[in-house]
């Protein structure tokens, strides 16, 4: 194996060995604390432009299967592990992690102390990093890193270019694709929803002309403030139809209603984040993947209500509009990967759509 190394913007160097695709890459280095679900995570478009570190020491035991893709063309920049399993063992496995990364043109780094890397990120925040072949000239690399500006059009990179339909015989749901995970479609289809997926920059009129029962705003990569057109779209759309937002969709709903978002130091990426629903006191263990969050003080109590909070650090995890049937969560009820505690939010979405329809008929 070829020697490869990871150089962080702050000068930390992690030396290891390369696997997967052979190429140099620059991006934001983040960590995921999940013990399983590497296939779903690597193919999750929310990791677009990021170098994904797994804190769990051995990754790839169950190989890569046909079923657990969250996108067809993953855009994660790199995968960093302590050790990867060369010989996976699982009845569903089709290939090992190395073959998969090579096929998807994603470089990997193995043999590094991911615990130390995680500690550095926790202390200094998620930062730019370069994954490259071994060289002694780290100073030049650091200078290069500092001059690089990471792209801000990530959603445009991962969103679908054309609309498509995932048919069922049921309620008409429109999904706005900001970096859609397949499991969201799966959960909606499972509940009989006829899903139409539209690109991220679709206009309000186009959406309303399709006469949907409800609109779902998906997860996605990057800073929600880079999408001002989506804020305007939501501000108008919410007057006409129930909306359910997940992850980036949640942040966009917040921004559209006057709240603010901020970049977290190292974000929430993992599958064991406890979240409390304020109304009932119920705790769900949730799957999360976000580097930005809605700032609690900025939430205008005349427009939005905070419905869920994270137990560990108190971040806003759920919102609900005061006047319209609009609600959102920062975590992933689709749970791919992760615990299924929160899956009933999709049922809630169905119920909100039904309740809204009855109200429309009676009004």
């Amino acid at each position: 194996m070829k020697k490869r190394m990871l150089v962080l913007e702050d000068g930390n160097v992690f030396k290891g060995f390369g696997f997967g695709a052979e190429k140099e890459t620059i991006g934001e280095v983040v960590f995921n604390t999940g013990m399983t679900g590497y296939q779903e995570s690597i193919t999750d478009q929310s990791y677009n432009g990021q170098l994904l570190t797994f804190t769990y020491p051995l990754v790839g035991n169950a190989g890569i299967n046909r079923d657990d893709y969250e996108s067809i063309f993953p855009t994660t920049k790199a995968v960093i592990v302590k050790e990867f399993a060369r010989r996976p063992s699982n009845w569903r496995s089709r290939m090992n992690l190395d073959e998969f990364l090579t096929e998807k043109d994603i470089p990997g780094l193995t043999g590094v102390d991911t615990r130390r890397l995680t500690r550095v990120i926790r202390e200094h925040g998620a930062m730019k990093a370069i994954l490259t072949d071994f060289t002694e000239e780290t100073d030049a690399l650091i200078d290069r890193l500092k001059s690089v500006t990471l792209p801000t059009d990530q959603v445009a990179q991962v969103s679908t270019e054309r609309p498509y339909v995932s048919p069922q015989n049921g309620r008409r749901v429109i999904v706005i694709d900001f970096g859609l995970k397949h499991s969201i479609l799966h959960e909606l289809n499972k509940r009989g929803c006829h899903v139409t997926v539209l690109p991220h920059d679709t206009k309000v009129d186009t959406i309303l002309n399709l006469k949907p029962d409800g609109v779902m705003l998906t997860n996605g990569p990057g800073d929600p403030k880079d999408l001002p057109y989506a804020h305007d779209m939501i501000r108008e759309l919410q007057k006409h139809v129930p909306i359910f937002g997940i992850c980036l969709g949640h942040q966009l709903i917040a921004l559209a209603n006057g709240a603010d978002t901020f970049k977290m130091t190292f974000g929430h990426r993992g599958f064991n984040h406890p979240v409390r629903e304020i109304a009932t006191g119920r705790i769900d263990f949730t799957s999360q993947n976000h580097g930005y969050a809605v700032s609690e003080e900025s939430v205008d109590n005349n427009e939005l209500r905070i419905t869920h909070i994270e137990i560990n650090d108190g971040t806003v995890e759920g919102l609900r509009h005061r006047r319209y049937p609009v609600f959102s969560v920062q975590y992933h009820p689709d749970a791919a990967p992760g615990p299924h505690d929160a899956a009933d939010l999709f049922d809630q979405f169905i119920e909100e759509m039904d309740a809204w329809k009855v109200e429309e008929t009676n009004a």
Partner: protein
Amino acid sequence: MENKTVVEVVNEAAIKRALTRITYEIIEKNKGIEKLVLAGIRTRGIILAQRIADRILELEGESVEVIELDTSLYRDDREDDASAAQVSAGHVQDVAGKKVVIIDDVLYTGRTIRAALDAIIDRGRPEKIYLAVLIDRGNRELPIRADFVGKNLPTSREESVQVYLNETDGKEHVDIIKPS
């Protein structure tokens, strides 16, 4: 026992979600919880009212008053022994100027609600009366409509709807019972 088909139509999680949504809607429609009084009808309505009050306490940090309504005295379709009927809302005499939310498990003919309206108005003139129900099963005989509905369940008169709650039944779901 005659043959019947029992279908579970609402499960425990769905009851929980419906009550949470109704709670949000009550607060928003009423623009806060000022002057709010929750009036639960008989057994299960009282339990539901208490659960909604608990949610309001969590959300708004303030408790709202829950009163119990016994409508049997005001029914127009029962020949009950009048001495058995007690007006149990004795501890809250005055609803004048309040915004009362009547809460019941199932809305059917509307006769219970009419009786509840009488029971409330006998105690004063509320500023406003709302109606929240867990299940609206249709088949109204009176011009009554709920402001907050957990779930609409279109049913026929031959069917019956049974709500089970943990506090009274040790289980929590809603069944439709069809004669077959």
